[in-house]
């Protein structure tokens, strides 16, 4: 079940950043620091507007930007939630798994007594699937 949480957010008028940008930055920071986690529900547009005493359209604009960037996702009829990030692993964990995969591959290639240049060119070809996907 999604959890509804208060959004502890401050905005300041008289700042060079427009209020909608302050909301975007604030929510992103909370997600980055895991103060907000995937599945957490955000306040309604009207609710956050009232909390901050600002125009609801300003909140709607910030939420639209956060949704477009993939930080939030809307669930039909339920509201807005912190999205599951596409890259779920930490950088360290990602590197560790990559090392593991390379090491396994090298050990296999070594056992086949396959020339490294040919192994590399075949690997290069195989990896082109990925570059197509991310292009």
């Amino acid at each position, binding site marked *: 079940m999604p959890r509804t949480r208060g959004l502890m957010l401050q905005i300041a008028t*008289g700042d060079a950043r427009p209020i909608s940008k302050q909301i975007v930055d604030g929510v992103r920071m909370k997600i980055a620091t895991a103060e907000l986690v995937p599945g957490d529900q955000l306040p309604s547009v009207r609710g956050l*507007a009232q909390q901050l005493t*600002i125009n609801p359209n300003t909140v709607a604009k910030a939420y639209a930007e956060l949704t477009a960037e993939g930080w939030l996702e809307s669930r039909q009829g339920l509201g807005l939630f912190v999205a599951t990030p596409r890259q779920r692993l930490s950088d360290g964990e990602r590197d560790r798994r990559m090392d593991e995969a390379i090491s396994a591959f090298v050990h296999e290639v070594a056992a086949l007594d396959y020339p490294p240049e040919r192994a590399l060119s075949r690997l290069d070809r195989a990896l082109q699937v990925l570059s197509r996907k991310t292009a």
Partner: protein
Amino acid sequence: MADTDYVIETRALTRRYGDKLALDTLDLAIAAGHIHAIVGANGAGKSTLFRILLGFLPPSSGSARILGRDSQRLTPSDRGRIGFVNEEHTLPSWMRVSAVTAMQRHQYPRWNQAAFDEVIGHYHVLPQQKVGQLSRGERAGFNLALTLAQGPELLVLDEPTLGLDVVAKRAFLESLMYSSAAESCTVVYCSHQMEEIERVADNLIILERGRLAHMSAPDEFCGRVTHWIADMPFAGPPPASVPGLLEVQRIDGLHHYLVLDQDEGFAGFLRGAGARTVQSMPVSLDRAVNGFLAKNHAMPVAA
């Protein structure tokens, strides 16, 4: 129908007081929906504009339409569709709150009691109190409640929160932004308080000397203005040669420029003028509007 897309539409609207032009061939079209803030220096023509729009004052020339009607030929039913709140919150001081309410209820066929109750609930206003006994903030709240209860399609507010304390001001803004009665109407709001405009306005309209100087979302306007700090060895370039100049100041030997519509090319201009270092930063809405309005003021030569 072009007429009904705009709640306010003026064409070449001019109002002359003797030799002075309060409105100078003003072309202004305010779209239906949203909250529009009008700002301008004193004497920019805001009050004259409102007086003409509400039919209290005839134009010298040009035309003004409000809710699609000629502002000089408003019928009582047209007026019922327009709510007006002025800064003085002028209400008959000798009457009791209940009597004023009854009078307004009688006068407006679309009277919405729920809207009245919702707004007045923010204030400690008792029906038996005389209007003259209410504080300024209570009178403002009462006035807004009366106006929203008439079910207007257009709400015109002239400096409505002037002189209100922080609590009354917040209650006023909340009623304006979140009450169900205000939701369905277009709000045209005149204020000098940028802090409030930043919170409230979808659209920013700047009047200058009776003409329209700018209209866009507040953020967009902010984005047009940048603040540059340059270390100039001498007096710096003559102000007339500085592109987009709004304001220049010399502080602690550094030149501060507030400029309009300048991109990174402005750094090149400053370097070409002899700047040793150049920095730039965005500005707040308050600073941007202030600089914009100050542009035409006489500026002493930097010491």
